[in-house]
């Protein structure tokens, strides 16, 4: 039965596939897919290195602090960071007092609700609070940035490329795709998937922030620092993960060598295998 029906079922699927293939090939030739501006002008992220890259990479805490400063003074106006609590900032090398001060002076306050009087009010942030979410009224939907570098291919490099990638729409693009002119209120950026985004270049000029460690705040430097900070915010345990990894691999290597010697010993009297 199986040997009778098997080949018939096989033929059925085969003919259906040839049918799909033939139709697909015909329409691919008769009406080839039109090229799109996104397809031709979208760029892959720039090649940029971060201290945390690679199996031996570790965060540069000084850079993370600078990146946090850029986030606080530039990004935080529109973008939330809801998975990070102020206490987590101790990981960047801030002292307890500094963390308290950062929380207390944070622009967006914690909403409170008095159940007796029914009054709504605000209070200062404390280290155990998560960074308050931002309500954005303008055009577009600024995504929460806590996980942004994990949520995009080539996370850190993507953020860096996007921040430094704003430019005039190329004349070549408009010549080829006259309908693809960047609409009013949007900005052209070839590193963004559909080329036009609602966010204007957030880091527009040198010295937009003033670094306390003396690093010159060029656009490139700020973009790199905030990208490094966002790699941290997406995975604060990254350093610990790699450290643990080396210990685990070292142990496993030793155990595997022992297991190999044990296996060799056990099989010594049996030829083969």
């Amino acid at each position: 039965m199986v040997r009778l029906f098997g080949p018939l079922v096989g033929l059925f699927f085969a003919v259906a596939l040839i049918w799909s293939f033939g139709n697909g090939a015909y329409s691919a030739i008769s009406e080839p897919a039109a090229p799109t501006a996104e397809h031709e002008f979208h760029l892959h992220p720039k090649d940029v290195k971060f201290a945390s890259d690679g199996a031996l990479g570790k965060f540069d805490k000084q850079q993370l602090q600078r990146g946090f400063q850029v986030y606080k003074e530039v990004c935080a106006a529109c973008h939330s960071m809801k998975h990070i609590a102020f206490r987590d900032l101790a990981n960047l090398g801030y002292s307890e007092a500094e963390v308290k001060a950062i929380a207390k002076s944070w622009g967006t306050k914690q909403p409170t609700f008095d159940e007796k009087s029914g009054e709504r009010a605000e209070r200062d942030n404390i280290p155990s609070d998560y960074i308050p979410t931002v309500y954005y009224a303008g055009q577009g939907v600024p995504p929460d940035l806590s996980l942004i570098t994990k949520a995009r291919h080539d996370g850190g490099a993507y953020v860096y490329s996007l921040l430094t990638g704003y430019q005039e729409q190329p004349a070549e693009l408009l010549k080829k795709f006259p309908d693809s002119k960047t609409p009013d209120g949007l900005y052209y950026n070839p590193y963004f998937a559909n080329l036009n985004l609602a966010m204007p270049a957030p880091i527009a000029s040198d010295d937009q922030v003033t670094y306390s460690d003396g690093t010159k705040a060029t656009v490139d430097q700020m973009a790199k620092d905030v990208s490094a900070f966002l790699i941290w915010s997406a995975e604060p345990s990254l350093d610990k993960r790699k450290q643990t990894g080396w210990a685990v691999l070292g142990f496993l290597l030793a155990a595997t060598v022992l297991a190999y010697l044990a296996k060799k010993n056990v099989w010594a009297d049996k030829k083969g295998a």
Partner: protein
Amino acid sequence: MSFAWAKEYKPASGLTQWLDEKLPLPRFVYNAVGAGYPVPRNLNYMWNFGVLAGFCLMLQIVTGVILAMHYAPNALVAFDSTEHIMRDVNWGWMLRYAHANGASAFFVVVYLHIFRGFFYSSYKAPREMIWLLGVVIFLLMMATAFMGYVLPWGQMSFWGAKVITGLFGAIPLVGEPLQVWLLGGFAPDNAALNRFFSLHFLLPFVIAGVIILHIWALHIPGSSNPTGVEVKAESDTVPFHPYYTAKDGFGLGIFLLIYCGILFFAPNALGHPDNYIPANPLSTPAHIVPEWYFWPFYAILRAFTYDFLFIPAKLMGVLAMFGAILVWFFLPWLDTSPVRSGHYRPLFRKFFWFGLIPTMAVLFYCGGAPAEEPYVMLSQLASLYYFAHFLIILPLVSSIEKPEPLPFSITESILGKDESAVLNATPAAA
């Protein structure tokens, strides 16, 4: 079960003697994976993957049970509770990475286990039942993995759930009500997430049960081996312990080195970035792709792009995708060659290495690629070969192929000669 020369369990101490009379659990283990189970002496490293698959299941159950202590299966908080595990639970990041990559490792190991079975025809008599149970385990694994991927409630979780449950909508007449019933709503939401969590917790224990049957069925004829020649005498075998426990220990070490390398140094390499974006029913990702281990079957699903003989393309795709796995159930009866091992089957070997393996590679690649040309046409050609291989080529090859001469026995294949086997040639006792 097992062979006449299998060593018998002898309790050494008073305690084990007492236990052996009341509940002979040590005897059971001794006969199952101890010195009481004679195994062919010529197994190569492809025979390590059964034990490794069992290890992966245990790993998934242990990490999964602990993750479930911290996870909240509610559409409002599921995503955040996953991040809570990553950030605030002690070693939570390691547990979650171990579990997510553990699923990938489980599939790698099981795919190798299955392809071992394909090459050495492990499915042939008298081992059909082991094979059938194995396919059942694979189907259960797919269901479990799919539902597990939904739990973090990211974009791919949501849209993956929507696409896969949408497949049931392709069934004529009952499709749409069935889909609504399965999801508990018109789209994946809290009801679906909750039931997926419940089933994701349950199914691994069902898998464990079927694995017990799988191993039980294995112990009746005993393990197959690379020559495909059945065990004839004691000299063909070695006791499972210490010979294969030692070999599996080494295999486990190699496996753990690779697995931990990925876990600690590239834990997100096998996942999709979109799943770190919270589920949003109003925003469809540009490319919806399942986890990598489903790519070959996803490619088959998407290969059917035109209605065929009044059958809608979507239904054809669904039939073909499930058919691609169901066909494995019939392998023992499609491949009729009396020779088991691919080593002695010249024609079969060619179709295996130059047909099936490249086809699976193409399907794998196309399943992860966007649904554009040339990937669609490539997956159509590869799907065509896939079905032809199992349903047409395999039966044909079996009938026209002239196998190469087999060794007299396992012992002869290793030592070059086998005097004892000639003298003691006795059929294996069941």
